């Protein structure tokens, strides 16, 4: 059994103390199998994200423009200074934050309504759930093109119906359309996550509240929401981080014109359009940090717990 020491060194410590050797062998086999089963998934995830993010930090410390590869050199933090003193970056950051906050708030309200309908409806529950999955499943770019043509002056039924000129050429109308496209696409996902929380609300509790004379709104705020709080926080966390990465809708709807660019669009433009790996990587690292900070704040401030973390959820 000496070779097991290599794969599971900690296995040695436990059996020597408390457990019988017979049990420890089974335990060791279990540990070995556990590690073997997880190894491929862990390897792929770390190889495709762990190393590249380190590499990305390394690239961000260099002047590295693929159009002028000869001028590649280590420049320390000057890319960060360049990005963080750039007006376009901060505009994009503001726009991204605005889109994130507004769309997540609207999605939470609409998603809650949709979740209640999916949970409670007396007729056509299957139908409602089925059609709700269409926005969730549809390719974002496809939906974005649908909105683009709906608001495009030459083709759009919405522009002609609402008597608008060319909403996608102005900043505020463009942002509203981007938010509309985001909300349409992701509200059903939010609703499904919330519905999972709704299913946990005990029916007896609602009946009891109702007996005590609680109105529908009181039952919602005093019973349903407190019980659902963990589900709401998880849904908010996931959607906030997802909304902050917004790219597809903006790419199709405005291409970032008229100050509607998101941070992801900025990074993409510098990298793939501009072929500036140094600046592009700097933006990548900054976006990564921003997302990490958002996640940290959610978990610390609101006590959102990680789903799937069954060993003592909240800390």
């Amino acid at each position: 059994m000496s070779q097991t020491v290599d794969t599971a060194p900690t296995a040695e410590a436990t059996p020597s103390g408390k457990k019988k050797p017979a049990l420890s062998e089974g335990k060791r086999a279990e540990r070995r199998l556990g590690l073997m089963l997880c190894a491929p998934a862990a390897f792929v995830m770390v190889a495709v994200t762990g190393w590249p993010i380190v590499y990305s930090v390394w690239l961000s410390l260099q002047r590295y423009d693929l159009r002028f590869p000869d001028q590649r050199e280590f420049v320390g933090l000057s890319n960060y200074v360049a990005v963080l003193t750039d007006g376009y970056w901060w505009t994009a950051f503001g726009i991204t934050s605005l889109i994130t906050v507004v769309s997540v708030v609207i999605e939470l309200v609409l998603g809650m309504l949709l979740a209640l309908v999916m949970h409670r409806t007396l007729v056509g529950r299957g139908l409602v759930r089925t059609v709700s999955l269409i926005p969730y499943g549809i390719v974002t770019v496809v939906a974005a093109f649908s909105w683009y043509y709906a608001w495009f002056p030459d083709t759009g039924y919405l522009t002609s119906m609402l008597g608008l000129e060319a909403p996608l050429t102005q900043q505020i109308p463009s942002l509203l359309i981007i938010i509309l496209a985001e909300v349409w696409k992701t509200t059903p996902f939010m609703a499904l996550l919330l519905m999972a929380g709704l299913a946990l609300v005990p029916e007896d509790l609602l009946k009891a509240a109702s007996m005590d004379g609680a109105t529908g709104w009181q039952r919602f705020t005093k019973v349903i929401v407190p019980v659902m709080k963990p589900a709401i926080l998880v849904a908010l966390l996931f959607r906030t981080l997802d909304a902050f990465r917004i790219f597809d809708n903006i790419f199709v709807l405005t291409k970032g014109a008229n100050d509607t660019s998101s941070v992801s669009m900025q990074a993409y433009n510098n990298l793939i359009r501009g072929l500036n790996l140094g600046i592009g990587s700097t933006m990548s690292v900054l976006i990564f940090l921003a997302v990490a900070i958002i996640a940290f704040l959610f978990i610390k401030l609101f006590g959102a717990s990680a789903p799937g973390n069954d060993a003592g959820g909240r800390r």
Partner: protein
Amino acid sequence: MAIITGGTTGRKAKWAFIDIVIVLYALIPVVWTLSLSFKTTESQTDKNFFPSEWTFQNYRDIFTTDEFIRALINSIGIAIISTLIAVVLGTMAAYAIARLDFPGKQALVGVSLLIAMFPQVSLVSPLFEMERNLGLFDTWAGLIFPYITFALPLAIYTLSAFFREIPWELEKAAKMDGATPAQAFRRVIAPLAAPGVFTTAILVFIFCWNDFLFAISLTSTSASRTVPAALSFFTGASQFEVPTGSISAAAVVITIPIIVFVLFFQRRIVAGLTSGAVKG
């Protein structure tokens, strides 16, 4: 809200009305794309919601160009291969997480949670540079690797939630009968877990099918460009005659698998998406 007894016709009518609102909400953009795809070039600019003249010309056009057919093959191939690999690796890992006790389990859960929250755009620059050096840029493999990576957390969460619901006793009984843990996995748990695995496969496929950012960043020719990426190049090419019809027809074609999944597997998809969320 709390009373679900019987239901008078009045209340049913109220719910039916709400249902209709939701159906319209979900379907209008889809029907609009469908309608555009059937409009003739001249009637595209009439701004009517429904086509006045119907034509299949847009579909004929896209299926006679290599560009679309090639992109469709890329989309299907890349999504299927990524799904298969992600589901196999995810099943192994999720089984271990749900059933076995081993060191590093929490770390794995933590890492996959981190990746689920990871901004994909942060990976575009290093992957772009690394794949160019490794010769993976603009190949199927160059997209399959990131897809598997981002699909794995989804697969692991969904599957471990399903696996937790499978009764422990069966596995123990199999072990009592002399099965090794590996045999217990293959013979007892795997068949019971098949529905969960299938559901996960659908969710992962939808995820891979949907991707746009990697598809436009890590490809440069039709050799590996998937349909969502190819669509945006339909437009970029000609500024003045926007190929509305072709884009809409191609959009409809890649929406068909989604509609099929949703229609046939609604229950499973809902169960899959909600199962991971309840725990915690």
